[in-house]
């Protein structure tokens, strides 16, 4: 059943173990043993319960440079997102506190050029978090985005998030995810 | 059997899990597993009884911790007798159900049925021997849910509706009980019954309204579950819509354990002195008097045999509460004895009625006329049960009636005794016409079955025999109940 790359598994395992230790706040052997067991069970459950892997698995070769750059890309993306979120909130606050309530909503279709599901999801959620936009509907071909203002709709296609996500995809190997 | 008190609770639950687990694989295992578990339960209960009567109350602290932390149970004489009743009663009912429920329920429902019955048994056992009020509450809840379960397993609309009503009302009841427990805890700082009982006089002096409120809530809570008169609305539907064996369990055993709980709270926690300083017994008295008459009068109008039996339960529960609300050892002993006796006879009646319904497919009284010709033994057992209900001497119903009436006279209230007597007359008014038409009524002519298989017949006959036997030799339950009543009143 485990039709994913072992490396990916190892990453999940380690990540979850880290989570476990973070929760417990103790780094002793007991925690390690129990944690390993728990994490293993959790992962098995997750893979067993999940629907079959996506038909669109396109493993990409990953250049060494991309691999090394991955953490930086992630951090950069997070920073970018934070800034965007703050901006979004300020914008919302301004709109909300404006007595005229200047909204001019738009439904727009949007087609990102991404190769992996997780990338699309990341982008979709980023869109939701960022100024004036909200992903309403989504499938592999594109998104249906609701924007709060016309200007937000106009700027969305040029938004910086998409190429950053594409960069992340390159770093982690897009399309390898299923679900 | 040192672990009897724990086993008697744990065993049915364990059995329930295993039966539930095996039920989807081999239903036969679940069936006989249920009976076997109940039988072992009965055996443990009997050995506990003999132990308790010899050595006095048996206290068992699970986990070895003392009362406030661990769960402590205590098997006193009352508990032991009721446990025995539960074990033996459940064994017989489940034995009866073997030949009966598979056909009535269908495979899917049956898988749930046996575990639920055992869960109910475990809950009831826990309820009667719980030593602290919180476990009392928990066990009452387990009973309630399992009882709702066995009503509605077969998913007939009427049963579903009845079960829903029961579930919601008993949730109200348990809310009241929990609230009362919390109130007691807040003023005494204990959950353990003995400890509360010791602390209560002082608490009642300084927080009279809280303690009074707690008592009232207990009365309402357990009164709801035990179908005390104005709170009985759920019972007729629930007990008549359930499958036959369930009806017997519910009407015969389940409502009784709540009475035991209420008696414990009233007499062991509050104690007679404190209890009669509150209005609770007086309220209970009038309610129960209402129950005796209301239940009987409505029962007269019933056309469905199981509804008739259900209303009769209301009347008889009124009878038990009546005895408990009289400040007299004899009356309380009579009421407790009636807990036992009514259980025996009502189970007998419900099982017999169930057998009749199963064989003829008819539930209405008219449709069952002349049934004695094709099912003589079952009808005879039913007759004995009915006579016991009326309180004909030579049956166990007489003995309990005797003591309650005696208690009423102890108080110098002959009118109360007349009330008891008159309510028996009323119960004659609805049992006898059916019994007579069963023997002498015209046979409606449709094909009639024969007596059921031995496994179905044996429990009915045994119970009828117990009715007569304890009518003639009432020493077994009577002596214990007198002792219990005495101990209730010895409490200060």
């Amino acid at each position, binding site marked *: 059943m485990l039709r994913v790359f072992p490396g990916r598994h190892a990453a999940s395992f380690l990540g979850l173990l880290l989570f476990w230790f973070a929760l417990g706040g103790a780094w002793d052997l007991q925690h390690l043993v129990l944690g390993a067991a728990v994490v293993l069970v959790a992962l098995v459950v997750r893979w067993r319960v999940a629907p079959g892997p996506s038909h669109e698995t396109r493993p990409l070769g990953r250049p060494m440079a991309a691999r090394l750059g991955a953490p930086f890309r992630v951090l950069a993306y997070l920073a970018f997102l934070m800034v965007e979120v703050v901006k979004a909130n300020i914008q919302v606050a301004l709109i909300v506190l404006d007595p005229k309530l200047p909204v001019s909503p738009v439904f727009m279709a949007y087609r990102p050029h991404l190769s992996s599901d997780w990338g699309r999801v990341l982008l979709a959620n980023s869109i939701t978090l960022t100024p004036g936009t909200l992903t309403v509907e989504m499938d592999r071909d594109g998104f249906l985005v609701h924007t709060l203002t016309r200007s937000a709709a106009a700027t969305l296609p040029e938004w910086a998030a998409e190429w950053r996500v594409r960069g992340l995809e390159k770093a982690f190997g897009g399309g390898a995810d299923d679900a | 059997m040192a672990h009897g008190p724990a086993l008697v609770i744990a065993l049915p639950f364990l059995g329930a899990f295993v039966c539930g687990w095996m039920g989807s694989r081999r239903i036969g295992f679940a069936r006989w597993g249920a009976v076997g578990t109940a039988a072992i339960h009965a055996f443990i209960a009997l050995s506990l009884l003999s132990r308790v009567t010899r050595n006095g109350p048996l206290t068992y602290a699970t986990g070895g911790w003392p009362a406030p932390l661990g769960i402590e149970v205590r098997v006193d004489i009352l508990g032991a007798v009721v446990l025995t009743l539960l074990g033996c009663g459940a064994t017989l009912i489940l034995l009866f159900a073997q030949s009966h429920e598979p056909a009535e329920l269908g495979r899917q429902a049956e898988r749930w049925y046996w575990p639920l019955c055992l869960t109910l048994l475990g809950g009831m056992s826990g309820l009667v021997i719980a030593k602290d009020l919180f476990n009392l509450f*928990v066990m009452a809840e387990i009973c309630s849910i399992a009882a709702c379960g066995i009503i509605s397993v077969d998913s007939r*609309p009427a049963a*579903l509706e009845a079960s829903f009503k029961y579930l919601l009302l008993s949730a109200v009841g348990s809310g009241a009980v929990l609230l009362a427990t919390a109130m007691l805890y807040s003023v005494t700082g204990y959950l353990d019954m003995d400890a509360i009982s010791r602390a209560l006089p002082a608490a009642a002096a300084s927080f009279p309204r809280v303690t009074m409120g707690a008592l009232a809530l207990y009365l309402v809570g357990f009164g709801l579950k035990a179908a005390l008169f104005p709170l009985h609305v759920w019972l007729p539907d629930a007990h008549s819509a359930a499958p036959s064996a369930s009806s017997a369990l519910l009407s015969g055993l389940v409502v009784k354990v709540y009475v035991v709980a209420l008696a414990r709270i009233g007499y062991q926690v509050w104690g007679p002195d404190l209890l009669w300083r509150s209005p609770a017994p007086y309220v209970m008295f009038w309610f129960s008097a209402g129950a005796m008459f209301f239940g009987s009068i409505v029962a007269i109008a019933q056309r469905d045999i199981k509804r008739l039996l259900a209303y009769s339960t209301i009347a008889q529960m009124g009878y038990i509460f009546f005895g408990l609300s009289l400040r007299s050892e004899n009356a309380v002993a009579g009421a407790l004895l009636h807990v036992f006796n009514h259980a025996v006879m009502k189970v007998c009646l419900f099982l017999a009625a169930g057998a009749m319904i199963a064989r003829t497919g008819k539930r209405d009284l008219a449709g069952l006329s002349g049934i004695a010709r094709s099912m003589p033994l079952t009808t005879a057992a039913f007759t004995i049960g009915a006579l016991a209900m009326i309180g004909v001497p030579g049956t166990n119903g007489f003995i309990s009636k005797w003591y309650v009436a005696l208690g009423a006279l102890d108080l110098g209230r002959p009118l109360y005794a007349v009330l008891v007597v008159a309510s028996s007359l009323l119960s004659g008014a609805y049992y006898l016409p059916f019994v007579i038409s069963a023997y002498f009524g015209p046979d409606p002519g449709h094909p009639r079955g024969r007596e059921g298989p031995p496994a179905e017949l044996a429990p009915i006959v045994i119970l009828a025999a117990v009715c007569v036997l304890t009518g003639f030799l009432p020493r077994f339950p009577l002596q214990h109940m007198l002792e219990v009543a005495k101990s209730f009143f010895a409490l200060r």
Partner: protein
Amino acid sequence: MSQQLLGHLNFLGAMVLFAVGLYTMLTHGNLIKKIIGMNIMDTAVFLFVVSLGYVRGGRPPIGAAGTAAGFVNPLPSALILTGIVIAVSTTAFALALAIKIHENLGTLDADEIVRRTRSG
């Protein structure tokens, strides 16, 4: 003082909620609404239990022997936890019943249900 008041406040709230829950349960015909009412009532009771403990100054009244000073008395919590478990199982069971009733009778209204079961 403030704690006392807090306890009383919750106490009062619990009473009101109990009434609201009971009222919902008794007056609404819809079974699911009844179930929600039951839940409100249950939580009100739990709130009552906690606030009763609070009235006495947040310290459990039992000084169980051998327990450290800062040891939190597990009793009221255990009480309510069990209560919650019971409440949720009751809820689940009641909902299953409600669904079955709806499947069988096509309605969730108590009066209507009674009418249909009596006639059917």
